[in-house]
């Protein structure tokens, strides 16, 4: 970012390529349409460009970028005036039982089903940690809480996920997911 502020235009593309995939994953999880997630990612980087002169080289870029993106997402949902939908919300009331061959999708669906059922603050921490690949200090900074509070939220979320999915089912879906991961 410091290089971009100093005038290296190529540095912004490097930043984009480094951070956009994880950011898109985080955005996509709660949005029904991929197009909406892409639009929010694009907006987040546009805001980052506009705010480049506010950037302090002593700051970490990733929490800053995610704070911008999360604010945009909140505003997006506020405009829609309804609860965030997950891509799997149409199947929210049942655990899917897909045939073999769709095991990886099934694993993800089961997890998405369970994530929808844990409190939003716990879900947010888990998603930022796993989909956004933020460290606990980074995600704590992004959402404005202490590192200890972030870890407590993650712990409660993990406990609840295990309760919802059941260890047996988790083992099976994780196993199938791993088999299908390239």
């Amino acid at each position: 970012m410091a290089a971009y502020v100093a005038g290296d235009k190529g540095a912004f593309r490097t930043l984009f390529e480094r951070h956009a995939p994880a950011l898109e994953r985080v955005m996509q999880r709660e949005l029904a349409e991929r197009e909406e997630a892409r639009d929010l990612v694009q907006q987040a980087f546009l805001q980052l460009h506009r705010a480049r002169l506010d950037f302090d080289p002593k700051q970490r870029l990733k929490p800053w970028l995610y704070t911008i993106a999360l604010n945009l997402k909140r505003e997006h949902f506020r405009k829609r005036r309804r609860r965030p939908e997950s891509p799997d919300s149409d199947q929210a009331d049942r655990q899917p039982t897909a045939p073999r061959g769709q095991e990886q999708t099934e694993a993800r669906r089961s997890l998405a089903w369970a994530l929808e059922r844990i409190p939003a603050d716990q879900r947010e921490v888990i998603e930022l940690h796993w989909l956004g690949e933020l460290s606990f200090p980074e995600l704590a900074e992004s959402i404005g809480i202490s590192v200890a509070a972030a870890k407590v939220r993650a712990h409660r979320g993990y406990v609840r996920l295990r309760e919802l999915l059941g260890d047996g089912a988790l083992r099976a879906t994780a196993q199938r997911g791993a088999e299908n991961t390239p």
Partner: protein
Amino acid sequence: MSRASCEDVRDALLAGRPAEPELVEHAEECAQCAELFESEAALGRSLATAGSEGALDAALWGELDRELGEETGARAWLRSRPTRLRTALGLGGVLFVAALGLHHLRPNWGALSTPVLGAWLFAFIGAAALALRGALPVLGAAHPQKRALLAAAFGLPLLYGVGAALSFGGAPFVANPFFTSALSCFLYGTLLSLPLVALVWSLDCGVGSRARVFAGAAACGLAANAALLLHCPATDPAHLLAGHGAIGFFLAFVAWLCMR
């Protein structure tokens, strides 16, 4: 004390690596990582499958690059200035509009004592700075303080108006055919606020939060009110409410219409 961290545990699970001894040692000391490793790391591996999905669409950079290319002109330059400078420019605009009131000072101005004038000036600058600070946020600042913004947008101008009414309430009324009409004051005040509306719009970097837009509208209305207060000798509460106070609410209403 283990040297591994929660992030090392996550990265190992994402990469599908087996749990190394130091990761297991970390999990023994860390409550949340312990949950990931329970039942043959079932939850950890399940979360890893979600974390590994999706790849970036190459066309997205092309779209962003095109948008970046369109970031030219005065507005793009203004809104990419550092937040401190944008706030200072906005506050300068507020003071400029308020100072327009000095151009044709109300005839009963002398009824104000110096402490009252000082308090009024302090309240005005404070409220305008708060409203502008809300309207022109540092991008990326965590958790916009919505309640504080709305308080700045509506509460402080209200306090300011009450204070002004109390300060001028005892002053003798001076008849002025132009300013006795609430509609005239409303139109004149709205006109006075327009340069500031344009400035705040130019400085806004497009975060678009409703609270922030309302705060900006209130800052503009506040400046117009201050200018009117210096101009208009009317002390009638109905006139002050309809001709002066309504400007801020009108601007907030227009902002709301634009946001829809």
